[in-house]
């Protein structure tokens, strides 16, 4: 009996000795797969940097449930195969607890599918595809960024208030361009029957010169133009708009026109009066929370945060908050807690809708203008469209998932 008691004590001690340091040493791993080379890096760097800033704070306060958070980043080079193998490596070899990324929609959907099978939570940080939380949504995927459905609805609401009737659609001939154009146009037709589509022009991604497209649109004389272009094509399009005086002749809406990454390189020579929408500006909303966020970000990185920084911030807050509430490191309990959870952010309270795992971010519609104290144009006359108003209804999501 005595031997048995000693044996039990010895066994218990051994277990303590083995597991205690192991648990303390085992970090909570978060993997990020995103494109950090080429043009998309202008957007993705801010997500990563703001995320790391929050993770540093979480680690300083003791980590997630006592475990130190470790962030592993991988460059997808905007390629689906490279990104997918990086995601595989992170899941199988590094055993990451959570995966994040990516700006490439095709890759985001591919990783999302893998995460569904492997039961690893995946936070989509920049892809604008509405399919992620729409038709292809599932329990393990979350989106903390706006998408083409949300931006389309926001754009349509803003445009419906303006007196334009005859429209022209012009954009990037790939999924993002068509999705955002359809989003705006379909919603606009619903809100304001009687709008008329004069014609469309579609160009290839990376189109070097927009002047011929603009002059062709001008000769059709529409009331307004929906410009469905994104990423690196925004800057040259705005440049050509300025060079041809397009913005002075015909008003146009371009979803990301007011974003810092688009307007900053153009300096004071960006066209004025362009209507754009964005989830965030470092100068708006003018709240203490946002000012504090900008100050912290600038102190570390020596630049103003662009919209991606808010996505990075939100990811960190959702992950940390949900695990605090769950109390244990358990994926299923974590997901239950993220659903319907809200976090405070530079743009106010942001709720993660339980049904489709889409963060309900407000959208800010503004018009480009010169402003004192800035050596680039900023968005003025900003109208806030609350997250609830731009979200697709749950019925719409259900319908999309049925297909």
């Amino acid at each position, binding site marked *: 009996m005595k031997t048995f008691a000693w044996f039990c004590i010895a066994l218990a001690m051994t277990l303590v000795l083995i597991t205690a340091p192991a648990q303390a040493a085992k970090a909570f791993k978060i993997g990020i797969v995103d494109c*950090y*080379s*080429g*043009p998309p*890096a*202008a957007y993705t*760097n801010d997500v990563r940097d703001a995320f790391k800033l929050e993770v540093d704070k979480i680690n300083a306060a003791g980590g997630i449930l006592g475990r130190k958070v470790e962030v592993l980043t991988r460059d997808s080079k905007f390629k689906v195969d490279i990104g997918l193998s990086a995601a595989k490596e992170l899941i199988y070899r590094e055993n990451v607890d959570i995966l994040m990324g990516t700006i490439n929609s095709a890759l985001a959907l591919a990783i999302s599918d893998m995460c569904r099978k492997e039961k690893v939570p995946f936070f989509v940080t920049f892809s604008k595809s509405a399919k992620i939380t729409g038709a292809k949504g599932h329990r393990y995927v979350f989106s903390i960024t706006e998408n083409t459905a949300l931006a389309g609805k926001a754009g349509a609401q803003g445009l419906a208030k303006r007196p334009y009737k005859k429209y022209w659609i*012009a954009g990037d*001939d790939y999924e993002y361009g068509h999705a955002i154009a359809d989003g705006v146009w379909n919603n606009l037709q619903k809100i304001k029957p009687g709008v008329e*589509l*004069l*014609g*469309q*022009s*579609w*160009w*290839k991604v*990376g189109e*070097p*010169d927009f*002047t*011929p*497209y603009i*002059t*062709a*649109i*001008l*000769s*059709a004389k529409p009331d307004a133009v929906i410009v469905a272009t994104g990423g*690196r*094509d925004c*800057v*040259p399009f705005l*440049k*050509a708009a300025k*060079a*041809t*005086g*397009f913005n002075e*002749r015909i008003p146009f809406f371009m979803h990301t026109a007011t974003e810092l*990454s*688009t307007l900053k*390189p*153009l*300096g004071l*020579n960006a066209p004025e009066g362009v209507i754009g929408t964005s989830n965030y500006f470092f100068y708006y909303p003018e709240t203490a929370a946002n000012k504090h966020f900008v100050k912290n970000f600038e102190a570390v990185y020596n630049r103003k945060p662009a919209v991606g920084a808010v996505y990075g911030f939100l990811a960190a807050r959702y992950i940390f908050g949900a695990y605090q509430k769950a109390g244990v490191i358990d994926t299923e309990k974590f997901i239950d807690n993220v659903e319907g959870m809200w976090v405070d952010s530079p743009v106010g309270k942001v709720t993660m809708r339980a049904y489709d795992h889409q963060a309900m971010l407000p959208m800010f519609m503004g018009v480009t203008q010169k402003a004192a104290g800035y050596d680039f144009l900023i968005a003025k006359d900003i109208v806030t469209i609350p997250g609830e108003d731009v979200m697709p209804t749950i019925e719409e999501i259900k319908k999309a998932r049925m297909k």
Partner: protein
Amino acid sequence: MEFAANITLAALLQQVLVGLSRTTILFIVASGLSLVLGVLRIPNVAHGSLYMIGAFCTYTVATLFGQSTLGFWLALIIAPLIVALISFIVERGLFCHLYEREHLMLLLFTFSFTLVFGDLVKLVWGSDYRSLTPPAFLMGFITISDLPFPKYNLFLLVVGPLVAAGLWFLTQKTKIGKIARAAAVDREMVGAIGINVNLVFAAVFVIGCYLAGLGGALVAPTQNITQGMDHAIIIEAFLIVIIGGLGNIWGALLGALIFGLTDSIGILVWPQFAIVFPYVAVVLVLLFRPKGLLKSTW
């Protein structure tokens, strides 16, 4: 929506002018590529990278002078020279040892340079978008029959013929041009009569790359200066060189005209499917003249 809905004479004229200004850039880049291809027999895939470096250098030089008019002119002179210097180092250091290798080797070798130059640009300039404004006197637009035409495009319409005339003078009237043309036809024979072919090759390579840099410098104020602009231009430049006739500079001019004009007129005629027009033109040319429109030096 409809096919050919908005065609008026004014709009057509406008598209032709815009197309011609695009032709200028395409011709400058493609003629450099064609020159190197014709004389040195190097399919220089890195030509697009040099164009990109030219644009980035233009940005840096012009920004040093506060993007002023003086800065713009200096950048237009200095940036292509920097590109020429880089190409001179690369040619003397590496390419000159490889002329005897087969084309596939050279193709792979220049391809490796696209990767090296791409990373170099990322290291030096980072991944942010850059934008350069045209000098004050070239900002804005003039109005031609109620349609705006950017002044900078007008400037390109002046530069294009000047570069073409310069190239004509260089290849037809100067000694080095004559030797280069001879070397393109029969390099052994040129060597046999006691001319240092290597030196001629170096000069031609540097001139070809200078043109890539010049194209990059000229295009800088009209677009986004970013990584990836190398890939976009190199495909178009190769297509132009192929339809024009490999190694023939005037073929490059003809090819650039076809490419630039079908593009801009296609946009007016059928905006929804405008992307395909220049490529359809390329296919048609290759169907009827598989070796290119003008005599190839290959």
